[in-house]
């Protein structure tokens, strides 16, 4: 039986093929299309999702975002980890 994925700093999350992250021209915002659901990620969530390429580790994501937002890693880390675990639990991202 499958196991729940628990994210670690070395996990490399990926948005799976059947979850579409795309820009909606009509509404002028990014949207996530998934089985039977539609999500409108806020700016911070969007930045995280864009890094879910299966190559970037959670640790590298936190470093990247800390630099981008000029914020300490300790501030960024809980938000990023919580978001990724939540999206992984909803099966909207996968962990490699």
């Amino acid at each position, binding site marked *: 039986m*499958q*196991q729940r994925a628990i994210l670690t700093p070395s996990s490399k999350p990926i948005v799976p093929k*059947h979850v579409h992250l795309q820009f909606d021209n009509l509404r002028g915002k990014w949207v996530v299309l998934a*089985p*039977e659901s539609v999500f409108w990620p806020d700016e911070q969530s969007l930045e995280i999702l864009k890094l879910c390429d299966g190559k970037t580790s959670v640790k590298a994501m936190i470093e990247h975002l800390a630099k981008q937002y000029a914020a300490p890693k300790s501030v960024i880390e809980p938000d990023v980890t919580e978001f990724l675990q939540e999206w992984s639990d909803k*099966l909207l991202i996968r962990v490699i």
Partner: protein
Amino acid sequence: MPASGPPIGILAELTHRCPLQCPYCSNPADLLKSSSELNSKEWLNVFEQAADLGILQAHLSGGEPTVRRDLEQFIEYLDSRGIYTNLITAGVNLSEKRLNVLANCGLDHVQVSFQGARPETTELIGAYKNGHQKKLATAMSVRSAGLPLTINAPIHRHNIDEVPEFIDLAVELGAERLEIANVQYYGWAYLNRAALMPDIEAVHRQVDIVESAQASLKGILNIDFVVPDYYADYPKPCMGGWANDVLIVAPDGTVLPCHAAQTIDALDFDSVRKQSLQQIWQHSAALNKYRGFDWMEEPCRSCPRKELDFGGCRCQAYAITGRAEATDPACMISPDHKGLEQLATEFAHNPNFEFNYRRIKTRG
């Protein structure tokens, strides 16, 4: 009031034809024959208009959508417009070969219904021989085609005790989602209420089982639970509000806010055969009738929950009270709530039943 924004999704009921005869089918009791269905060109035109209007997801349903041989064209077109496609199938007449073709056309997700977790229940409810085995095969082909799978389990008296088995089945099949969807009593299900209504004890057991599985299967299987209205405390936010997020196009092109809307006799729905989808979405009197909050009466009007549930379901209000403007009797604040509970108890304890199976009437 007119639409405040574009719809997010379209539910295309491509046909009312279906090999199954489930007595709770969400299609209207007056089923349309194939001769009244939109043809390929007309459906493609509907999808083009829907894409222009701003829809993001297309749910291809029926009846059984795979009886349409032009399904491939529709998926290919929708995919080319960046629209997420969801096939809602009974899974008894879909070969692995065709499923792979559909996947190659850009299909994103498949929902397969299971009438029972046991073969004999599936066969009893769908009135289709060996249906269960075929459904299992379809579900497995969905997974081997690399597509995400939802198992849809409509729940009623005859399968409510199979809920744990439905959960096991979904996990074994590698499904991402399981819908434990207690039957909604409109249309066919309304006709079969006495044969389908579970009793309150079974409902309570089911709630405990589902809640515990939702916790233990976190990150493995998403379980969506649609509670049984007749035993609910509050109504569901039906369709995310009347003509708010989703539009439904019936096989003959009639545009509806939900599956059951045509049960409300006073409403006259428009058709894509006569008007553009844009005109209908914006200006249809029937779609505008219960949009937003202005139409509401008390107790809904001053209730803060109206933002959550939009007053519940208009079709249920109409079916139970004879007035579509009434508060959905599923709500405990509704003056009709007690009556609904009593009805449920009466139906649940009526041991004499015979299914009124879903069949197309033989008339002109």
